[in-house]
């Protein structure tokens, strides 16, 4: 179905189901319970899951397949966002203009940077991309303020031209009248509450398409060539294949994914901040990809979800919440537990995420996907070997070698 074999089709269907049911899955705890803090089923975070999932999927096409580690992909994210906001300013709030253009501009930008950077490989390539992205960020924050609105971030002002703006058009991003920030259904079932948000489903549908496209790329001859580049460029050359256009194409495609993700960020929330282009943002997508499982289909998406969850949920746990949780303990003990816990939550969320990166890399070199497979392996031990075969049906990871 859809040009995929049976296994991939099943895999895709599972992904689609999970994506569409996200508002329910991420809301496991009843409102008002003390664990409700861990619910993540509110529109903004769900949108971020989908959007950063797209970003990571695209990045994985470059890094996971070809092994070229770019430290500059945040630049494309930023370009995508700026493009979309500019379209709001010039035309109107309909995202139909901005999103395709975001893909095009970030693609062109990626073509330029990729053309230059891909003249080198290894860490030299990484540093070249980093240099380009940092230049973009530094300039966007300062000299280019007329285009980017610098520190504040690009936003729409009431005196912007907006030449296509209709009389009854919504005053926030929408897709032919479907306003992104509105919910089409808020379901209260018992003590549970599920929010079904337009913006989330818009991003989710695009994310599914992006995932599907990337699945096709993974299984295509083009994807095969990219993996070949990662394992042995010498053989590739002596087999009559030119690695450069392949890597460049991968770079541009992943740049376009990043631009799409950036555009969607602006489609959910009409503001584009320069920090989106900072090297830490580029580093974040690297972390997402490795954390989830480099070169796997599902890994980067998981990694993206993982990091965004920590950033948004753990940072909000404060002393008050901790005291609520541990209030049942005797006073002295409560104080001690809260004191320890404070290292890891609230302002300590960075510490927690740093520790988790380390733990995952040390114990699960294949990322979260590997962890999932190990877990699944444990449960399926009784069954035949074939069933354990992962949905990724990846070639076995070759032993890791430093050089």
């Amino acid at each position: 179905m859809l040009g995929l074999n049976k296994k991939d089709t099943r895999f895709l269907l599972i992904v689609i189901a999970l994506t569409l049911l996200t508002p329910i899955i991420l809301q496991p705890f009843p409102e008002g319970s003390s664990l409700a803090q861990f619910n993540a089923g509110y529109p903004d975070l769900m949108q971020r899951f989908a959007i950063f999932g797209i970003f990571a999927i695209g990045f994985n096409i470059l890094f996971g397949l070809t092994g070229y580690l770019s430290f500059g992909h945040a630049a494309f994210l930023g370009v995508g966002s700026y493009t979309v906001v500019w379209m709001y300013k010039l035309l109107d709030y309909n995202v139909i203009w901005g999103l395709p253009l975001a893909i095009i501009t970030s693609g062109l930008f990626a073509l330029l940077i990729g053309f230059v950077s891909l003249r080198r490989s290894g860490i030299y390539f990484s540093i070249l991309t980093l240099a380009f992205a940092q230049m973009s960020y530094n300039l966007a924050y300062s000299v280019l303020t007329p285009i980017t609105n610098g520190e504040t971030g690009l936003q729409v002002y009431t005196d912007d031209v907006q030449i296509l703006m209709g009389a009854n058009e919504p005053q926030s991003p929408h897709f032919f009248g479907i306003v992104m920030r509105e919910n089409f259904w808020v379901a209260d079932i018992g003590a549970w509450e599920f929010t079904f948000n337009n913006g989330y489903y818009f991003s989710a549908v695009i994310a599914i398409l992006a995932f599907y496209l990337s699945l096709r790329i993974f299984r295509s001859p083009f994807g095969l060539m990219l993996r070949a580049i990662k394992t042995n460029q010498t053989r590739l050359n002596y087999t009559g294949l030119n690695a450069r256009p392949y890597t460049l194409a991968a770079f541009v495609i992943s740049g376009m994914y990043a631009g799409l993700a950036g555009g969607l960020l602006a489609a959910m929330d009409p503001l584009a901040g320069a920090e989106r282009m900072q090297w830490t943002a580029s580093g974040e997508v690297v972390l997402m990809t490795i954390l989830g499982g480099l070169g796997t289909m599902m890994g980067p998406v998981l990694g993206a979800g993982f990091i965004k969850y920590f950033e948004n949920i753990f940072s909000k746990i404060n002393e008050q919440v901790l005291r609520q949780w541990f209030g049942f303990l005797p006073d002295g003990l409560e104080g001690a537990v809260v004191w320890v816990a404070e290292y890891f939550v609230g302002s300590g969320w960075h510490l927690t995420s740093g520790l988790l990166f380390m733990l995952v890399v040390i114990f699960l070199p294949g990322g979260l996907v590997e962890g999932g497979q190990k877990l699944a392996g444990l449960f399926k031990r009784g069954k035949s070997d074939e069933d354990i075969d992962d949905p990724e049906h990846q070639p076995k990871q070759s032993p890791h070698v430093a050089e």
Partner: protein
Amino acid sequence: MSNSNFTRRGVLKSGAVAGAGVALPTIFTASSAAAYTNEPMGSSVTLGFNVPQSGPYADEGADELRAYQLAVEHLNGEGDGGMMNTFSSKALQGNGILGKKVEYVTGDTQTKSDAARASAKSMIEKDGAVMITGGSSSGVAIAVQGLCQEAGVIFMAGLTHSNDTTGKDKKANGFRHFFNAYMSGAALAPVLAARYGSDRKAYHLTADYTWGWTQEESIVASTEALGWETVNTVKTPLAATDFSSYITPVLQTDADVLVLNHYGGNMVNSLTNAVQFGLREKQVNGRNFEIVVPLFSRLMARGAGENIKGILGSTNWHWSLTDEGSQAFVKSFGTKYGFPPSQAAHTVYCQTLLYADACERAGTFNPCGVVEALEGFEFDGLGNGKTTYRADDHQCFKDVLVVRGKENPTSEFDLLEVVEVTPVEQVTYDPNHPMFAGGNLGACNEGA
């Protein structure tokens, strides 16, 4: 597209959850029960404290958070009541706001507009916050203010000094208690002219982003009006850590004043570097070379140590003020935490009280009601003397403190001394002043 809301969430939920005392998130949905975004249905109301907990301003964020917790205590009738006792408006009863217990959620802005908006959104969407407050930089304040306007909740800005916050980026749902760059300039310039003479030549180093520019513009305008000459204005990268290569060119000019339009780590480093290069001992045309830091922060100044001694700047508030309100605040903050509050702590404490008071006076949490109650509101007793929330741009107008690094500090907190309290008339400007032009307050948005 119409909002098909099949559930009668208010009815369903009020029974189930009201007892638990949790505010229900209703953001961005047209709910039949909620008249405005996140209308508190239960017995409590949730406020969102969005402060930097990581990044360079994390200490200021932590101090803001302390002040918020103190404010919540006082609103709920715990503690000694702090400035509630000295506040000129007596609407607050110490029984929460409008009888509802005040609860709060916290988040990390990371001093990035993106992260700050994400955090604020989660407070609105997930936790049902009816008001967002906090922040320690203008970029974040403007970004979150814009969000709150769209979402239909009130934004009470924390530490933000850029003219744009209540200038070109002003929003009907946003309010700023803190002073701004223009006021710094208007307050500082006469003091500078009086102390250093009116024929000085100034050299500006300016952090290369929006806030830095607006401050440079303000200081240049106000000093030039008094006869100063601006030799040069040089932009420095935000990421710069070593300012030596920007300081040394000063030596080659005939400038006799260096103005550092820097904040936070930039300020600490540029000031330290300037002192290292002997600028304070330098003599130009027989006069002492002077350094000016227009926006002082005591918390940050600690990092510069004794380099700040004798250096003039302005600040929104300082704990050594002796008025009733300030003393009450310092007492209750100091008793609880063991050290005096910063200006960031003070401004956010005031903002929380002002918001609560406005709700009481309006009789509702409805943003439009709050806006109406705050616009043009005149008050006193919050440490800055008589203060007005101007209706035209939602900026507080109050006296501005000109301060100087203290020569003989008695403690690690005793770093600044107030040299002059510039009266509010002197720092008031027209809402259409060119430095603030271009914005549009718009109409208040109650969301839902």
